[in-house]
């Protein structure tokens, strides 16, 4: 990183000083204690059935007179069983410049694209922080320059991404991994510039009444690695991540009609593997409000996933259907439960997940997560994780 990072830091600090003081120096964040219990005995060497960890994510925010702002969010987790899960990341380190005709965001950030609930197909700017959770919703901070141009015609975002972040993978002692451990020390890049290849992206967004439309194009180092077979020094099989140069065009849509929310995401990608491919995910969520004269809301969701590459896909969702129920209790503690059932349409593999949370008092929040997989044939993407059903309990303190 060296010089460029230091230059960026310097520019940001200069902006901070020059822009002068204004509204707030806000300091917030959370501390989290997490326990995971794996209900089946480990099938891979060195894995453990119980793990505990602590995470800290403080946040500093300062807003200037004109609405411009600076945000700093570091993250650190310490894990008792997997050293790879003990990690630091700079989630955000951003200057947001607000001007009459545009917004400029400079620094390390997270950007989300997409509309689907379960599989975030078109969300490709940030790398997945996979050691955090297999649901791929945790992301590593991505250095970028982002120019956002709003207008009557919609919003156009231009992204220049000067540095690439490698995906995190569980280590030998970690659960939720393949039989062969991913050796991130031997990562390969298609580009000679390796992680310094400059990637770019464009995104157009427009609201048309009940429809939200997003259209994006990405060129650069694909965030999703192809895992190659290799051998370590002792001749044991390992996986070597290969990051290829890709071109990708994607579309994401949502349509709201009464209690119905329809969602669709699709992409066409070239450069990963031998041939171009098409993939989509989408479906609906319908909510029954105030069921049985209570404050309870119950949502039913159904989504499908398809990847043209079939069994050669680099994700677990090559041809699947997920059905779920979302319960919002609407109590002062904001109690929520989401359960889902995932079914592969081409083989017998199935999955179950539950995510529930409830606030305790004003500053605490308890979250429970259960994930289980059944019936994977040896050919399935998640076959090596067949014994990794787990229950996770998370207690967060917000300050």
């Amino acid at each position: 990183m060296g010089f460029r990072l230091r230059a960026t830091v310097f520019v940001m600090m200069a902006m901070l000083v020059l822009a002068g003081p204004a509204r707030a120096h806000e300091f917030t964040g959370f501390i989290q204690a997490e326990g995971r219990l794996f209900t089946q005995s480990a099938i891979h060497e060195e894995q453990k059935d119980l793990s505990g960890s602590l995470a800290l994510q403080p946040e500093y925010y300062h807003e200037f007179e004109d609405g411009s702002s600076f945000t700093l969010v570091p993250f650190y987790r310490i894990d008792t069983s997997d050293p790879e899960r003990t990690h630091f990341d700079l989630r955000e380190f951003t200057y947001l410049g607000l001007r009459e005709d545009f917004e400029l965001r400079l620094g390390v950030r997270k950007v989300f694209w997409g509309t689907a609930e379960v599989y975030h197909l078109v969300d490709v700017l940030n790398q997945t922080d996979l050691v955090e959770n297999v649901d791929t919703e945790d992301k590593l901070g991505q250095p970028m320059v982002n120019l956002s141009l709003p207008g009557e015609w919609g919003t156009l975002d231009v992204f220049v991404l000067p540095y690439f972040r490698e995906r995190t993978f569980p280590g030998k002692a970690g659960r939720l991994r393949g039989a062969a451990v991913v050796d991130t020390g031997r990562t390969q890049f298609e580009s000679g510039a390796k992680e310094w290849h400059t990637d770019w992206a464009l995104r157009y967004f427009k609201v048309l009444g009940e429809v939200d439309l997003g259209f994006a194009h990405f060129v650069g180092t694909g965030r999703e690695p192809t895992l190659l077979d290799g051998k370590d020094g002792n001749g044991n099989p390992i996986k070597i991540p290969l990051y290829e140069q890709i071109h990708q065009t994607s579309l994401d849509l949502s349509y709201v009609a009464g209690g119905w929310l329809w969602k669709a995401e699709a992409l066409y990608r070239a450069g990963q593997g031998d041939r171009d491919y098409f993939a989509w995910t989408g479906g609906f969520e319908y909510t029954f409000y105030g069921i049985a004269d209570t404050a309870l809301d119950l949502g039913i969701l159904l989504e499908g996933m398809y990847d043209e590459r079939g069994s050669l896909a680099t994700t677990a969702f090559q041809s699947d259907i997920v059905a779920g129920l979302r319960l919002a209790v609407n109590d002062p503690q904001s109690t929520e439960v989401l359960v889902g059932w995932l079914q592969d349409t081409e083989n017998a593999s199935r999955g179950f997940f539950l995510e529930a949370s409830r606030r305790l008092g004003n500053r605490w929040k308890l979250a429970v997560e259960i994930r289980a997989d059944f019936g994977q044939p040896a050919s399935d993407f998640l076959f090596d994780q067949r014994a990794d059903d787990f229950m996770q309990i998370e207690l967060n303190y917000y300050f």
Partner: protein
Amino acid sequence: MKYWIAGCLLGMTLLPGVAGAETPEEKGLAIALEDDRRDNGFGDYQAEMVMTLKNRQGETSQRFLRTRNKEVEGDGDKSIVIFDRPRDVKGTALLNYSHKDGNDDQWLFLPALKRVKRISSDNKSGAFMGSEFAYEDITSQEVEKYTYKWLREEPLEGEPCFVFERVPVYSNSGYSRQVVWLDQKEYRIFRIDFYDRKGDLLKTLTHRGHRKYLDRFWYPHEMFMVNHQTGKSTLLEWSDYQFGNGFQEEDFDQNSLKRAR
């Protein structure tokens, strides 16, 4: 923003005492139009809110919110509500485009995922943040959302009031009707009784501490909602009203929702 001219004309014909041979429905509508006319032209405002929820046992919990609001010519207002506390929802923000006809457009920003999510606004009778305020109680009140019927004149808090009934015409309301007490001099809402779908009295909303802004707009600083059926209540306190912020359309788009904090 609203039917300004119609409001004016109708308003003139029905200044208190002038109203003659009109039906209770016409009189009720005329009062609503005059009220709407008086509320028009504020431009924009921002304010802070504290919500205190109290259950039957008297236990309380609080929410801290901020709101930005912009008047839209010919349609309902645009607004953003930003959540400050409880801390676990800090940074969550709700963008609402209110419409005279049909459902409002709503988006929710989820800060942990950095995700702007289109949400259904069909949930009008749902509790806002677990409080006794339903979504339909806090979104922009448009004349077109109800039919009206004048009931009587009656003093409240020592002020002569119009008492009229309004029935929601939009779908999925939790109410069969509302009875409104509006003071005749300044057109300030003093009280609303809400009747549930079965016709039973459900809630009473009381507005207190009205203050005048920009020399003509009266805004209450306390809204107290009590639920007669559950014994729960919510006190919504407003402070730091600021007008003339010069908000633009871009301050109420999906991009601005991401940085509204």
